[in-house]
């Protein structure tokens, strides 16, 4: 049974990878069964090599003050040859928050996500040679009561962002509503896939799951002075709507 699963998994991973090669920004959600097997892959082929490692750092505030946009920074730079980082929530039916393929970027990412009930947050880091390293943190309930600020004045898909070439930071926010009907024609949809492209190809890629809902915001970290404008951002939401933006050359630098 184990061998069968492994074979199935190997096949599905290959198929999965093919779906992305040469077609940056393709929808992961178009193949939900592969998505599920991808999560299985993490568990099944990790059994012999999975270990907790203090080099996987997950940092969050002490309390989940605004549960719909909890900030987190994951940093696995101390581990060489990181292929991907999977952020997940313990004890939930849909554990994955996102999968980050850093590519040309550092193995470090900051973003916000939604967490209705405080639960441990885990980062599973896979290296190029197939080993997994785990780290995580916990967060308390907040004091509560703060209101969500309304950002509905900007159209869905609006991208704000900037590259700081000297430090290699790239920050983007994508305007996307939650399910609370503030923008009826986008209700129930969410951003599923986001990638960054330079003149020579794809730089980094994100696959996003349910907890990354409202106005997703990311800081990518490239090595200082390693990337330059323009950088193209390509994404797609679960309804197939494209998100595209070009981070332009700075006016003065």
């Amino acid at each position: 049974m184990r061998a069968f699963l492994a074979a199935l998994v190997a096949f599905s991973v290959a198929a999965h990878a093919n779906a992305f090669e040469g077609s940056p920004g393709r929808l992961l959600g178009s193949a939900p069964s592969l998505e599920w097997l991808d999560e299985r892959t993490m568990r099944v082929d990790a059994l012999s090599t999975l270990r907790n490692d203090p080099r996987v750092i997950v940092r969050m505030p002490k309390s989940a003050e605004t549960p719909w946009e909890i900030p987190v920074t994951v940093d696995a730079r101390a581990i060489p040859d990181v292929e991907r980082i999977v952020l997940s929530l313990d004890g939930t039916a849909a554990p994955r928050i996102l999968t980050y393929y850093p590519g040309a970027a550092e193995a470090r990412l900051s973003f916000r996500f939604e967490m209705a009930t405080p639960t441990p947050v885990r980062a599973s880091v896979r290296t190029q040679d197939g080993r997994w390293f785990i780290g995580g943190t916990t967060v308390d309930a907040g004091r509560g009561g703060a209101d969500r600020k309304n950002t509905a004045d900007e159209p869905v898909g609006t991208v704000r962002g900037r590259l700081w070439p000297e430090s290699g930071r790239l920050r983007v926010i994508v305007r996307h509503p939650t399910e609370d009907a503030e923008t009826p024609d986008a209700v129930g949809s969410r951003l599923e896939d986001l990638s960054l492209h330079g003149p020579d190809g794809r730089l980094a890629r994100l696959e996003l799951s349910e907890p990354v809902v409202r106005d997703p915001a990311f800081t990518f970290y490239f090595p200082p002075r390693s990337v330059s404008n323009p950088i193209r951002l390509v994404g797609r939401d679960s309804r197939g709507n494209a998100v595209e933006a070009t981070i332009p050359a700075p006016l003065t630098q």
Partner: protein
Amino acid sequence: MSLTRRAALGTLAAGLTTPALPQARNAYKLEPKPIGPGLWMVEGATDDYSQQNGGAIVNSALLEGEAGLIVVDTGPTLGYGAALRAVAETVSGKRIAEVVVTHHHPDHSLGSKAFADLPIRALPRTRALTAIHGPTYVANLERVLGDWMEGTEVVPPDSDLDAGRISIAGREFQAMALSGHTEADLVLLDIASGVLIAGDLVFLNRAPTTPDAHLAQWHQSLSELQALEAAAILPGHGPLDWTGESIRQTRAYLDWLEATIRAAAAEGLDMVEVMDLQLPSGFATLGAQPDEFHRSVIHLFPEIEREILPRLD
């Protein structure tokens, strides 16, 4: 009297006579301190909510009017409200006639159930906000305070208090309907003493809280309060202020907070990285730091960042 705590709360819930202090291990020791003619403050800790302080982190005020005693802000729990009520009726011998809530935040309003048989007055918007957010506050504070929250339920203020020259229980006030800390921040200038009961528009030696802050409006409100040149200021949190330092400190902190978050957003920092920034020594020593700064980053950063990052089309 050897009432059990539950029996005491039962009496209270029934709205009968003067409620007894809860006799359990979670007893509040509230000591009204005279700060003016017919005016007392009950001073809270300058820390965050904790199992140690039971959420008694807020300043309540007691004032004696011709028609009876006035209680301003009912505290964070039913137990606090009951303790406040019991101690209030000892300060002058008068019964409580009216209760006022400065704004809807839980540390100021969740003790109201202990006063449910009395008129509880607040700005109209505060009444609405209490009803909207109260249940969430109760749920969250139950996690933080545990048993201290026993019996605590949302009791929104039941009558409006309007701005202007008003009389409450026969005592004269200049009431101001301001905003900035929340959408509706009531401030009372006590005419007899010249003391300004400032609510949470003003903090002293405790980091201001910002879950519902509108910084520009908050600054405007501080300017109006400064112009009053009150004899003394009773901040929402922290000691009584005879010099105006509380307004200056609150303004300086909010200025620094906004400037710091703007600068961080302009450098591409994410929220967790902003929280790592070193606080200036004058603000690091305020009560509830650095946790309150971390909370403020969460409250304020996303909106400020949206203003700063260029839109890409």
